[in-house]
Each structure stands twice: as C-alpha cells, then as structure tokens.
C-alpha cells in the first residue's frame, strides 16, 4: 500500500471511529429523550391545552431525533421520527378526536419501542 493510500485508510478509520463514538453518545442520551416523549404522551388526552403542549414536545423531540439519527446512519429511527413529526404537524389545532388520539398514541409507542431497542445498543 502506498503512503497516500495508507493515510486515506487511516483517515477513514478515524472517521468511522468518531461516528461510532457519536452513535454511542446518541444511544446513551436516548433515555432522556424517551422520558420527555413518554411524559408528553401521558398529557395527550388532558384537554386542548395539555394536548397542544404535549404535541409541541413530541414534534420537537421527533424533529431532533430525525435529524441526528438519520445523519448517524440509524435510518429506521430517523424515518420513523420524521413521519411522526410530519403527522403531528399536520394535526388540527385543539383537542384531538378520540380515534386520532389513539392512533397517534400507537405511533408514539412504536417510536418509543424502537428507541428502547437502540438504548440496548449502548
């Protein structure tokens, strides 16, 4: 292997190592994110004001998770968070109809389950 090629391989190795470290950090931080989403999820059915606040938290968390996870190569987490964010943004303002609230609750639960799986990756 030439000197230049060896350096490129070493650089690539350093990048991969840095990315693996960041993925680990992300997984370590998932517990806090899960807690925030879970707390918001509980407030989903507590009237228009509680629901609005909860939706804001869920949307913001989903937004952040989607940006970071997708960029770290955790595509399934990124996509699911992005879909959740899009759906929450598309909801009408005010109290949610019971059926829609139940559907959203399931969607949030699916994301939480997936996040918990990655929590175990740490």
């Amino acid at each position, binding site marked *: 292997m030439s000197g230049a090629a060896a350096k490129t391989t070493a650089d690539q190795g350093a990048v991969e190592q840095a990315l693996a470290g960041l993925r680990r950090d992300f997984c370590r931080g998932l517990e806090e994110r899960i807690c925030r989403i879970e707390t918001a999820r509980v407030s989903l059915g507590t009237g228009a004001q509680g629901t609005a606040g909860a939706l804001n938290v869920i949307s913001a968390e989903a937004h952040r998770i989607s940006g970071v996870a997708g*960029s*770290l190569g955790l595509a399934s987490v990124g996509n699911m968070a*992005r879909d959740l964010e899009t759906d929450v943004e598309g909801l009408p303002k005010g109290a949610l109809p019971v059926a829609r609230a139940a559907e959203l609750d399931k969607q949030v639960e699916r994301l939480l389950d997936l996040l918990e799986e990655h929590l175990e990756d740490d």
Partner: protein
Amino acid sequence: MRILAVDDEQIFCDLLKTRLKQLGHTQVKTVLSGPEALKIAAAEGNAVECFIVDIQMKPMDGIELVRHLRAIPHHQATPIIMLSALTDKSSIDSAFISGANDYITKPLDMVELKIRLEMARKILDERAHAQLMHEHLLKQEAILYPSADFDGEILLDEVDGAVSMLSMENFLLKQGSIRLRQSSAIGFHMVGAETYFEMLEPTYYATLIGDIAQAVSQSLSAFPHMLVCPGSGDIVALLIDESNVDLQSIRSNLEHQLETLRPRFTAVDMTLPEISIGEPVRTGLFGKNGPTTLVSRARRAGQAASRAGNNISFRAVA
C-alpha cells in the same frame, strides 16, 4: 474556509465537525445557540467565512439569527447555509428572504454537504472579486477615469429582500416544478439606464439602482419576495407563492414609493428616471424553460415594457 456551525444539538454539532473534517475543512467552530454565534460573529470581525445554521432552534431560531448576522456590516455578504428538515419548506423560504444563500437537508448527506460548501466557496470568490473590482474602481475614480461594467450584476446588500443572482438561481433550482409554478417573476427596467451610467460615477449609479430597488421592494412588501439586480438597469423580483399578482396595484405602490425619492433627486438637480414594469412571468409545468430562465424572461419583459413606453414617470414639479 473558516466555518461557524450553529445547531442546538451537541451530537449534531460533533457530527458536522467530523463530516466537515472529512471534506478537508479543519477550521470549524460549533456553537449551540444563536446568541453565542452572534457573539463570535461580531467579535471576530471577518474571521468567519461561512455560517451553517440550523433553522429550528430555541430561543432564537435560525431565521432570526440570519437576520441578525446580516445586520453585522462585515457579514452582509458572508455565505450562510441553512440546515433544515425536509418538513421545513416554508421556513426555508423565510430563511432565503432573510439573507441565507443555500440550504442542506437533514439527515446530512456527504455529497450534498460537499456541493453546498463548494457553492459557498464560489460565493466567497465572487465577493472577493467584486471587492477587488470595487477597490480598483475607487482607485480609478481617484484619477477621474470612471469605468465599470454596465451589464454586470450590482449586489444590493442593503435592500430588503435583495440577494445575489447566484443565490436566487440556487433557490429556483431547489424548488419543485409545481411549487415554482405558483411563483412569478416581474422585471423592472430603468429607462435610459445607460445614460445615467455614463453620466454618473459608478458608485453613484449603484446607489441610484439601490434606491430604485428599495422602492420596488417596498412596493412589493405585501408579498414574500426576493430581488436581484442583474445589470443593464434591470431589477427582477421573484414573488414566492404568488402566481396571480395585481400589476396595477404594484404599479401604483411603486409610483408612491418613487415619489418619496423625489426630494433626494431634486436636491442634486437630477432628472428622475422612469421605470417600466414587465408582465409577470412564470414557469410552465411541462415547459422547456428551466427555473433559472425565469430571471432572464422577466428581464426581457421589463425591457419590452420600456420599449412599449409603458413607464412610470415622475410627475413634473409644480
């Protein structure tokens, strides 16, 4: 290139730094908030050569940060690349209107990041060239030998909504064809611009165009818009998400705005220019015209209106 990246996610900042390093950018600083970025931007003078700014941040979002950055004199022209999720379409428009030059979507894609940074480098080079030309002109003026490019772009840093041609083309290229169809471009032309150009020193000519562009911008204040001054006395406004514009009302707004310039012109005993307004142009859904031809087609429409004598002229002073 010295880069300052702003994102409220520490992990994303670290990731961006890693990726930028991979692309050969080692002079990268990251901060977690708009206020921190502003402190660095203001304190370090010209040190930051490119900003990468996340749109969704709290308490100061990326759009507000761009507005503040553009208010710092030495960063009026520094390339700003926004970071956004695909769901942020409307925020992206606002970011461009506030002065951003480009955007990258999250999740981060290495190829896209590389291309966007090359674009930022191009803007930097263009600005450096413009600065050189400006200094060259000032020297020439000192020996009373005025010269400049009448057909060249004039960068209107202080006019609301003004962007460079490169930024506008970039914006147009990134719009989907259906969305682009909902926008329109209007060409404005200063009648007899070449005569003014020959008569005035280049900096005064640029000031004149800037005054008119500001009047145009104010006459369009009801619409989200961007402006460019591609040269030859033309100004092109892109009205975002406005396909049905009432040209008559724009015309009367512009008449009113131009009237406010009267005292400045009469004070220097100068004839006030006439402005023509072209018919709005749009892109066809299946047409052969690419999005960037909107600007040239709007220019032609503005010039055609001028030839047809469809001009706004200042009323004679009583």
